[in-house]
């Protein structure tokens, strides 16, 4: 039994050594895909997003406000437009992300205390970019307005403490828990890499078994005894490599890049191991539907490709419908990413993670129908 398993393991190792394709699936292809995602988000924070302005006042105060906006790290005033219509055309052509319009008589209205409105029209088609811009503009405009008021109050009261207090009676202190850096790299890449990783696990498993059947070598390979052990032995090299790969990206993100990892690496890596095997078993389940290599790949593609959207990292699970929640539940990666976030960010007690680990482990049970199908196929 054990002999059959370890034989199958070493046979697969030498197969991998002789197959450029399998070797690529285990090394360069995933590393290349990961590197691309890392590079896309490496900057992590958006700087100098271009906007255009329509300054209908051209006064000292309007220039002061625009100066402050341009000076903020997030926003760059890329152009001055003559009117709102021209400005909106610029947004439509995507050369800027928004327009700031300063009304005419801006300065006069401020001095007459009739509270003019500065209008920001932002491209909300790009939701994330829109949110980043809104946050920055709200802050800058509030700051600039406070500056003006502070000067006015100072003139009246001659007391800077009291002047400060009338600006805003209630302070708002905002604490981002966990991803304290407010950095999109950590937020997106830590979920995108697992989403790509699961695709590789499924594909490599199907390739490994698919080529065997495509070349019609399955009878010769499995024979009639110890079929289960041989299947496990054949899976193991991939289990090992993909778990190691997972552990490496975890160390890369949280170790070398210096983000905090509050929880336990070993629990997270154990979760990874469970996830790798879960996906291998699911890949085999696709394969045994017809023992057809190309069809299994198509099924694997349908199953793994949309996973990222269902993780709940971008769009929260609290607002998902029941079908989306169901689909999310049948993807081991969503439970793994939940585990990774709660370990990395909350440092949750291992005791809390039991249900997530169990959920991932439950996919292992699918190995039973896989074995049954293999045995009946091979006894034909």
């Amino acid at each position, binding site marked *: 039994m054990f002999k059959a398993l370890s034989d199958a393991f070493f046979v697969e190792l030498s197969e991998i050594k002789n197959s450029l394709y399998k070797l690529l699936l285990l090394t360069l292809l995933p590393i290349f*895909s990961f590197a691309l*995602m890392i590079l896309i*988000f490496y900057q992590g924070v958006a*700087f*100098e*997003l271009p906007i255009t302005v329509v300054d209908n006042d051209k006064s000292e105060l309007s220039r002061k406000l625009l100066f402050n906006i341009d000076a903020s790290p997030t926003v760059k005033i890329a152009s001055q437009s003559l009117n709102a219509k021209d400005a909106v055309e610029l947004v439509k*052509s*995507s050369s800027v992300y928004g327009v700031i319009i300063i009304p005419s008589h*801006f300065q006069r*209205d*401020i001095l007459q*205390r009739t509270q003019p*409105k500065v*209008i*920001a*029209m*932002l491209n*909300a*088609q*790009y939701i994330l970019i829109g*949110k980043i811009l809104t946050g920055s*503009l*709200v802050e800058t*405009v509030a700051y600039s307005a406070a500056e003006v*008021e502070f000067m006015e109050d100072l003139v009246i009261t001659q007391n800077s403490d009291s002047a400060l207090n*009338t600006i*805003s009676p*209630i302070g*708002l202190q*905002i*604490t*981002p*828990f*966990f991803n304290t850096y*407010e950095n*999109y790299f950590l*937020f*997106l890449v830590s979920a995108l890499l697992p*989403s790509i990783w699961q695709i*590789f696990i499924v*594909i490599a498993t199907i*390739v490994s078994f698919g*080529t065997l059947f495509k070349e019609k070598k399955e009878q010769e390979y499995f024979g009639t005894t110890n079929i289960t052990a041989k299947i496990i032995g054949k899976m193991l090299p991939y289990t090992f490599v993909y778990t190691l790969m997972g552990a490496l990206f975890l160390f890369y993100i949280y170790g070398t890049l210096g983000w905090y990892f509050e929880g336990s690496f070993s629990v997270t890596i154990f979760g990874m191991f469970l996830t790798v095997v879960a996906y291998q078993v699911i890949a085999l389940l696709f394969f045994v539907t017809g023992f057809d290599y*190309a069809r299994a*790949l*198509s099924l694997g*593609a349908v199953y793994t490709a*949309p996973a*990222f*959207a269902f993780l*709940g990292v*971008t769009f*929260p699970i*609290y607002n*998902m419908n029941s*079908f*989306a929640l169901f*689909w999310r539940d049948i993807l081991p990666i969503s439970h793994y990413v939940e585990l990774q976030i709660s370990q990395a*960010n*909350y440092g949750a007690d291992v005791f809390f993670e039991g249900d997530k680990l169990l959920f991932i482990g439950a996919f292992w049970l699918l190995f039973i129908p896989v074995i049954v199908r293999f045995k009946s196929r091979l006894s034909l």
Partner: protein
Amino acid sequence: MRFLEVFSSEAKLIFTDVAIVLTIIGGVILYAFLYPQPYSSQSVSGLSVSFVDLDKSKVSREIAFKLNATPQITITRNDMSERDAKEALVKGEVKAIIIIPQNFSKDLTLGLSPTVAVGADSSYFLIYGAVLEGAMKSVLTQSAGIKVAKIMIGGTPMVGAIDAYTPYILQTMNLFNKNNSYTQYVIPAVYIIILQQTMLIGLGILGGGVNERLRRKEKGHYSDAPIWMMMSSRYIIFGLIFFVHMLFYFGFSFSFFEVTHLAKISDILNLGLAFITASISFGIFLGALFNSREIATPVILFSSLPLVFSVGFIWPQEAIPEFIQDISILIPSTSAMQGFLRLNQMGAEFSAILPQFGILWLQALIYAILGYYYINKNRKKYVKN
């Protein structure tokens, strides 16, 4: 006459292949419904928040009321301490904590500018953003109310008091996607990538399969028919299928999932034709490069996420390394997404997307030439030896 023979042989090759049919018909239809599912409610609302009221005053109760009145926030717990609230947060019972400090009301009367603390789970940026937005809105209105009240005691009339709140204000407006709908944000671009990727997988399996047969010295139309006939057959068959898919995606599915339609139908079809033709050329070219049927699915699958994220509609182009943008411009979906989003989601004129339109036709031409070259090369390599 010869062309009809080649055409029917190509059609047979395509429609008898379960993997191809599963991808270009089954996959396309399934994905149209599967991808929009997570976003069906379109925006983020009703997030559970723990309210820690250490002051228990009239003002703090008013703040709680105002928080609850925002669409983003629902107070589901009232914790006695920050510690309890944080525990609930770690367990995932709440997504944010709002703390009113002790003596809040007293400090307010004394003019000491007390602070409301808001802590939100920033592991999920939409949740974090929604909580902040809700908290800002309600605390700021409370703040405004208090300020108005204070000035009133000082004897300023109410109208002046409201105006005195701040010298000027910022009013933000959404251009396009007025309701911040997430479906609207993600689906148009994702649909384009689905159409392209399923097309490439289909043509990749087909081309890889032909190369396998050539290698095995199997005889068929692919070993001697004029290449232009084979290629034209693929343009016709895939073109027709994906034209119908395109109508289904941008017509029926868009209305079904309530995605805005700003572009003229003729403009969409015009851009769509360029996109479909460019994708077919690219698919024929890739298919000629693959030496087996099974390479297409994995390679194209892995490229999907990087392709979506390098276009610049999720993460700004300004923040993406330039060489990645340069590479991504080689792929039809990049220009198609940029063009389509501008036309249909932002209502740009067709003249504004001429660069994208030109790139797509250029790709259609160049990849067709490359495809022809490699099919010819494979054939010479396998048939002559």
